[in-house]
Each structure stands twice: as structure tokens, then as C-alpha cells.
């Protein structure tokens, strides 16, 4: 059983998803899906434990016992184990939070479809992490993307289908670019196994084809990561999707794409190729910084809290890319730990917004005015989560900021460090804009008659928000795992035996 954990991680939700359609009963589907999501999390924890066992390091699982590189292998090191851990954790927590929220936002007749798509999306995201086969990454990318288009279009607002369509067009372009890159790599190396591609690329004498493949895959993934200026799909998608869907996708989807991108740069290609032959470091730094400033600036001017958080997400992706673009162990650790911390913070904040949406029926700042009087717990959760987003000490956001700052200063890149610090002040503005509305404004009509969110939603929300505090105080755990992950990633790029 233990040796089969890698495949169970995928098989369980993948098999469960269509079962939900067959079952169809709303309550039963809900209970089953939540059970599945939590068991997936348990499997991810088990895998993490196996990877961290001394002397273990990497788990290889050959599907159907076909030896690599002929068959598909699932390959797990401390990097993807870490990503899978928090993706599955948030997947489970958000799904526990979901029932009350979707009851209001999605017609009951479609609930089983929601659970099906949700589980499929989770499968896709975990699959992208677990697999060691490049074409398999594409397959799972499409599974997660298609199901997320479906999830977004479930939104009540009439603009939700349009937002989903917009995402579908851009997402498909991204995925197609990625596939083109895979095709070129297959042409060069004749294999789809990532480690095998890496070995053969090192001796292949086809610089132009390699460059083109790299370019296609980078741009494709940048669309999925929502790197500025390829982020245009994200604000609408996050704004019009049902609250639960936004919480889940915002916490996980972009991070998994960042994971795939890091694999591309460090495992398949080499940092030497990306950062010395190509000026990827400089380009990424520039796009990341411009993106941080533009998106944070845009967030300040939003009147819709969901859209505000969406722009903030675009900015935060910039911080992750900054870490990766440094290509040092410390920089990578910072980027990876920010993936984790931001997943918690943004997931938590979107859950808070979901609570407001449920009780107030709107997420416009004007309607949230004075909600602290009627919804004190929810409002306080926003304050705590917001402090995390700003990066105040003792919150998770501080950990990433500190590590990233240290990594840039270690490289002597103090202009980047200065810009980063200034940009983080913009977060103060957009977070506090909402805090002031909640606490200091005259209550709006809608907020006056609102009730506190139900415990079924508050408890999971506070669980996530509490985790941001926990990993702010006890960051040796998260930063330690991120450091292990960075080491694992750099080791693969050394050409060392995986």
C-alpha cells in the first residue's frame, strides 16, 4: 500500500469524480467529495513523510511497471511533495468550507457537477506536480484547466461565463504553446521523460530548436501563472467565479504553474542555459517588478474586494518569480516558501470574502462598510489575513519577504531589494482600504442587517488564517521544507543522479 501512494494520490480523486455524476444525490456527493479530498491530503502527508525519511530523497513510481524512460514515471522529491502537500491541504479545507457557500451561489441541481469539476481540478493540479513525464504534465494541465473553466462559469453573475470563456481562450493558447514546446523537445531528444530529456539535451547539438522549445514553454506557462503582462484573464476569472472556486483556484492553480516553470528551468533545462545563455534572470526580474507595481497599483483602485485580491495575486506572483530569477538556493527557497505562504494567505482571504458574499450578498467595498459591527469574526479574519499579505512580522507573509530580501541582498542586488520593499508598502494601502471600510464607515444598508457567517464557514476560514500565523511564528518548518525543496531542485540541475 505504501509503495502505491503516488498513484493513489491521482487515482482516488480521478475515479471519485465521475462517480459523483453517477451518484447525483446532493448530500451524499458532498460527504463523499469531502472525504475524498481529505484522504488525498492524508496521502500527500504520507508522501511527504516518505520523502523526508533519511536516505530516501526521491521516490520513483513506474506506472504499470514499465521501466523509465519507456513508461510514465511518477517522481517525487521534496519540491513537489511540498507543493502537493499544500495544494491538497487547501483543496480539502476549501471543500469543507464549500457546502454553505455554494448552496447560495450555485443552483442545487448543479451541485454534483461542481463537486465533480472540483475533484477533477484537484486531480489535474496534483498530477502536474507528481509526474515525471513531460507529456503527462500537459495532460494534467489540461484536466485542471478544463475543469477550472467549468468551475468559473458556474458563477451566478452573467459575466461569469464570459470570464470563463476569456480564460479558456488564453488558457488554451498557453497550453498549446506548452504542447508545441514539448513537441520540439520530443523531436530533439526522442523521449518524454523529464530526467531523460535533461540528459539528452546536455549532449544535443541543436541550439536553435532548444531555444524555440524553451521560449514556447516559458510563454505558455507564463500565461497560466498570470505573469504580467499575460495576466489579463485572471482578474475577471477570480471576480466572477463562485467564492469557493476563487478561493481554491487562487490558492493553488497559479502556484502549480510556478512549480512547473521551476521544473522546466531547473530540471529539464539548466540554470546555466536559462540565466547565462539566455537573459531569463534579468527579463523575469523586470517583468516581476513591473508586474508587482502595476498590479498593486491597480489593486488600490478597485471597488470590488474580489478584484482587488485578484490584482494582488498578480503582484504576488511577481515575488515568487523574483525568488526564482535569483537562481540561488536562498532565492529559490524564498520563492518556494512564498508559494506556500501566499497559498495560505490568499486562500484564507478569499474565504473571508466568501463569508461576506454569503451574508451581505455583495463584495463591493461600499456594501461592506461597517460590517465589523455585524460580522466581527469575519472582519477580524480579514485584518489578520491582510496583515499577512502586507508581511508584518509573526505572519507568514513576513517570512517570505524577509527571505526574499535576504536573498537579493546576498547577491548584492540592492536596487531590487529597495524596489521590493517599496512595492510591499502598496499592499498596506489596498488592505487597509478595506479595513477602514469595515471598521470606520457608517454601516451600509446591506451590512446593517447582515448576520455573522455560519460556523461551518468560519471554522475552516480561521483554520487557514490561523495557519498563516502559525507559519509566521514557527517558520522553521515551512522555510525548512522550502529549503529542502530548493536543494532538491538545484540538485537535479547539477545533472546529479535524481
Amino acid at each position, binding site marked *: 500500500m505504501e509503495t502505491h501512494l503516488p498513484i493513489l494520490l491521482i487515482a482516488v480523486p480521478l475515479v471519485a469524480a465521475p462517480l459523483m455524476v453517477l451518484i447525483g444525490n446532493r448530500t451524499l456527493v458532498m460527504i463523499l467529495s469531502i472525504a475524498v479530498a481529505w484522504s488525498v491530503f492524508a496521502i500527500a502527508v504520507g508522501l511527504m513523510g516518505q520523502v523526508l525519511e533519511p536516505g530516501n530523497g526521491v521516490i520513483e513510481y513506474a506506472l504499470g511497471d514499465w521501466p523509465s524512460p519507456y513508461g510514465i514515471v511518477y517522481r517525487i522529491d521534496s519540491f513537489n511533495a511540498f507543493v502537493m502537500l499544500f495544494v491538497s491541504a487547501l483543496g480539502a479545507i476549501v471543500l469543507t468550507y464549500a457546502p454553505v457557500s455554494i448552496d447560495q451561489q450555485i443552483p442545487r441541481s448543479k451541485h454534483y457537477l461542481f463537486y465533480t469539476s472540483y475533484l477533477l481540478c484537484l486531480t489535474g493540479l496534483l498530477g502536474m506536480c507528481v509526474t515525471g513525464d513531460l507529456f503527462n504534465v500537459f495532460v494534467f494541465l489540461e484536466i485542471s484547466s478544463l475543469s477550472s473553466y467549468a468551475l468559473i462559469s458556474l458563477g451566478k453573475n452573467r459575466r461569469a461565463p464570459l470570464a470563463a470563456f476569456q480564460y479558456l481562450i488564453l488558457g488554451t493558447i498557453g497550453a498549446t504553446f506548452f504542447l508545441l514546446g514539448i513537441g520540439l523537445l520530443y523531436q530533439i531528444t526522442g523521449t518524454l521523460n523529464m530526467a531523460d530529456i535533461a540528459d539528452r539535451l546536455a549532449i544535443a547539438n541543436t541550439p536553435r530548436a532548444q531555444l524555440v522549445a524553451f521560449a514556447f514553454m516559458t510563454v505558455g506557462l507564463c500565461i497560466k501563472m498570470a505573469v504580467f503582462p499575460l495576466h489579463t484573464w485572471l482578474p475577471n476569472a477570480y471576480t466572477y467565479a463562485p467564492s469557493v472556486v476563487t478561493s481554491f483556484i487562487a490558492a493553488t492553480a497559479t502556484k502549480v504553474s510556478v512549480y512547473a516553470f521551476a521544473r522546466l528551468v531547473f530540471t529539464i533545462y539548466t540554470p546555466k542555459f536559462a540565466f547565462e545563455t539566455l537573459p531569463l534572470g534579468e527579463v523575469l526580474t523586470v517583468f516581476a517588478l513591473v508586474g508587482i507595481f502595476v498590479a498593486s497599483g491597480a489593486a488600490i483602485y478597485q471597488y470590488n474586494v474580489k478584484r482587488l485580491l485578484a490584482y494582488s495575486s498578480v503582484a504576488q506572483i511577481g515575488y515568487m518569480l523574483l525568488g526564482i530569477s535569483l537562481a540561488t538556493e536562498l532565492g529559490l527557497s524564498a520563492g518556494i516558501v512564498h508559494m506556500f505562504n501566499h497559498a495560505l494567505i490568499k486562500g484564507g482571504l478569499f474565504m473571508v470574502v466568501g463569508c461576506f458574499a454569503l451574508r451581505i450578498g455583495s463584495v463591493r467595498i461600499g456594501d461592506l462598510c461597517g460590517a465589523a459591527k455585524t460580522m466581527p469574526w469575519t472582519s477580524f479574519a480579514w485584518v489578520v489575513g491582510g496583515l499577512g499579505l502586507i508581511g508584518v*512580522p509573526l505572519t507568514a507573509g513576513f517570512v517570505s519577504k524577509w527571505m526574499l*530580501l535576504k536573498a537579493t541582498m546576498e547577491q548584492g542586488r540592492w536596487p531590487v531589494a529597495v524596489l521590493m520593499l517599496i512595492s510591499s508598502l502598496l499592499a*498596506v494601502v489596498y488592505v487597509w482600504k478595506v479595513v477602514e471600510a469595515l471598521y470606520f464607515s457608517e454601516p451600509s444598508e446591506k451590512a446593517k442587517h447582515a448576520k455573522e457567517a455560519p460556523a461551518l464557514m468560519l471554522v475552516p476560514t480561521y483554520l487557514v488564517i490561523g495557519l498563516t500565523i502559525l507559519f509566521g511564528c514557527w*517558520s522553521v518548518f515551512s522555510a525548512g521544507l522550502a529549503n529542502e525543496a530548493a536543494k532538491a531542485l538545484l540538485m537535479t540541475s547539477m545533472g546529479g543522479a535524481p
Partner: protein
Amino acid sequence: MTPENLIWISLLLPLLAVVLIYLFGAIPNVREACTIMVSIVLFAANCQLAATVFDGGRPTFELGEMLPGFDIAFTVEPLGMLFALVASGLWILTTIYAIGYMRGHHEINQTRFFACFALAIFAALAAAYAKNLFTLFVAYEVMTISTYPLVTHHGDEKAKQGGRVYLGILLSTSIAFFMFAIIWTNEVAGTLDFVKGGILTQPAIDGKISNNELAVLLGLFAFGIGKAALMPFHRWLPAAMVAPTPVSALLHAVAVVKVGVFSILKVTVYIFGTELIQTTSIGSAFSQVGMSDWLCYLAAASILIGSIVAMQKDNLKARLAYSTVSQLAYITLGAALATQSSVIGGGMHIVMHAVGKITLFFCAGAIYVGAHKANISDMRGLGRAMPWTFGAFLLASLSIIGLPPGGGSWSKFFLAMGTYESGHTWLMATLMISSLLNIAYLIPIPIRAFMTPKGEQPMAYQEAPMMCVVPLCITAVGSVVLMFFADGIYHVLLPIVTP
């Protein structure tokens, strides 16, 4: 009890108070009794700790790694001990005063108020005990956040605006400058521990950091520690005056602002080292100036401008706020001069100014509770009705000005010695002019209050409740008594500046 245990106990006590306050939130008498009990126990614990520290002991307590390579750890040294004693001692009095004030005023959300107060005290103690810059920074930020609900306590538009300036300036300076300076220091020195003699001396000799960079780093610290209210980043302090008066008294005359100047002193003494600051000069080959000279001038300007602005304020709390800005710059000046006397004078001024200024704020609050007057021009003749309050005001004013029998005369004396020792003798003139300005804006207040113009009826007000008046009398007497204990403080602080 070993001193090591005392450290974590006294850190835990305010947190315990937070829990108790929320637990008994519905029963105000029990809630306040708990706060007072905890504050008394805390002060006792601090006194016991002080016995060890002033004997030369340096108890250490390590909580553990928070980030890889960065510890939360505490070591108590004399400067921090002195600050902790002041903060915890005055917390008892402020709590008693706050009960009178908050109830006399029928304020809402008193539970939140007392809880945040205790949290701020926790942060002040953590900063006072900090073993390294990282711990200090964390405590500093916790303090900013925990005092925000106190500043915006009234929850109206004015509170919102004040809170915005407060949080905006304190957070942005600490993130943009302070945090940057800390990481830079860590990069250069490889450690963030407070070490006697400084940790930057060796890197400066090794050429890891040039003299000009040292001056920039000092600037990042001086401006980054926004709580020291060095001009031009002082605006948050007047803005914070929208808070209820007990907050202005303990936090914006003692705990918060003193964490600022305390941090600056700590950085100059334990990170740079006074010797490094004195011997390093910057500039071209033709004209060389000391690396901290600019900071001396800026602090001197802050002293004078603060006093001049204070003179123009009719609102008593606003006048006291600008007076605080000016007085804090004395301490920054003491740090920037970096001589033996100036550092001791700065450290001593933390104590003297704390006791004096808290009295003045207590008085301002008592006047507001008793007579509902906030503007100085309305206080004419009020002294007859409120003799205790205005008598205390007069005594504390003497201490702030630096006239005997006020304790402040000693700290200002040592600061003046410092200007002489460092060769900036003309800065002494600044100190003297500022003292004159202090007289001009403080003394007329009690004088006018006691001198009723002929033909006017004495006002029909009476003193504020006992809970308000007794604490302010105690602190006023304290500010005089300290005059006779300056010797003790001098000897306590001497070890931190002697090699």
C-alpha cells in the same frame, strides 16, 4: 527564582493579562482588578530581575529559531532593564488612571482597550529585553499593530484619519528603512546580536563596508525607527493624539516613543559602537566630517522646531505631542553624539522624560474629565478649582524643562556635557535655547490657571475622580524624587559605555 526564568515570566505576564481581560470582559471590576494585579506582579518581577542586571548579570533566555538563522532571544542589559522598569512601573499607575478616565468618560469597547494596552506592554518588554536586532524588529512591529486599535479607539472619521497617518508612517518607515538596514547589517556583519562595542567595527576595518555606507546605514536606522519621531517622520505622533488620554500618556509619552529612542540608542551602542561612530569620518579629501554629524544637526533642528511648533498649539495634547517630538530628539542627539556622557544622558532622559511627560498627559486628561477643557486658552483660572492637577503639572513641567528640582535637569546636564566632549560645543546653545522655549510653552499654563484675573468668578469645576488625580500626583512627586536618584541611574548605565 532564577533571572532566566524571570525573563519569560515577565514576558508572559502581559499576555496572561490579555487572556484574563477577555475572560472577564463582562465584569469590569474583576477585569480591571486582574490588570492591576498582573501589572503589580510584573513590576515586582522586573525589580527582582533588575537586582541581578544592575549587579552586572546578563541573564539570557532563548526562545528558539523563528526563521532559519534568526533567533528570538532575550538578554537583559542595563539600558533595556531601565526601560522595562519604567514601562512596567508606569503601567500600574496608568491602569488605575485609565479606570478613572475611561469610566468617567463612558468610553465604549473598554475590554478591547485594556487588552490592546497589555499587548503593547508585552511588545515594549520584548523590545527592551531583545538580544538581537531581529527580535527587536519583531517586537517593534507587534507594537505598531497592537497600538493601532488604541489610536483609533473612538472609531470616527477623525480617528480613521489619525490612524491612517499613524500606521502609514510607522509601517512604511519600518519596512522601507528599518528592515532594509537590518538585513544589510546582517549581510555585512554576519550577525544581528547586540554586542558591547558594536558588531560593525570589524567589518569596517576589513573594508566590507565603507565609511559613506556606514553613514547611510546610520541614516536608515535613524529614519527607519520611526517611533523615535525624528523630523521629518514625526507626523504620526500628533496624529496619535486622537486616542483616549491614557493611551497618549503611557504609549505616546512612554512605551511607544521610548521604544523608538531606546532602539536608536541600542543600535548606536551595540551595533555601531560609540567608538566607531566617533572615529569614522565621511566626505572628500578636502573636508571631512564625522559620520553622525548630520544626524546631530538634524536632531538639533528637530529639538528646536518641535519646541517652536509646540508654542503655537492651543490644544493641550497637541502641544504636549510636539513637546515630545522635541524631547525625543534630545535622546537621538545623545545617541548621535556617541560620547560617554551623551549616551548616559540619553538613557537617563528616557526615564526622566517618561515620568515627567506621563504626568503632563495625566493632567491633560484629568482636566478634560473634570472640566471638559482641551484648549489652553480656556483654562484660565482653572487652577483654583483643580489645585492638585495643576500643582502636579507645574512640578512635571520643571522636570521637562530641566530645572531643579526636576529630574530632567540631570539628563539635560549630561547631554550638554556630551556636546562639549564631542567638540560640538555650539550644539549646547541649541539645548539651552530649547530649554527657554520649554519654559515659554509649559510654564504659562499652570500660571494662568492659578492666576484668576480680577473681577472674574472662580470656575465651578472640581477635580477629576480620585482614580485620575492620585496617579498623577504620584508621578509628579516621582519626577522630583528622581532628581535625587540620578546618581543611581548614572552608575547603572556606566557599564554600557565604558570599554
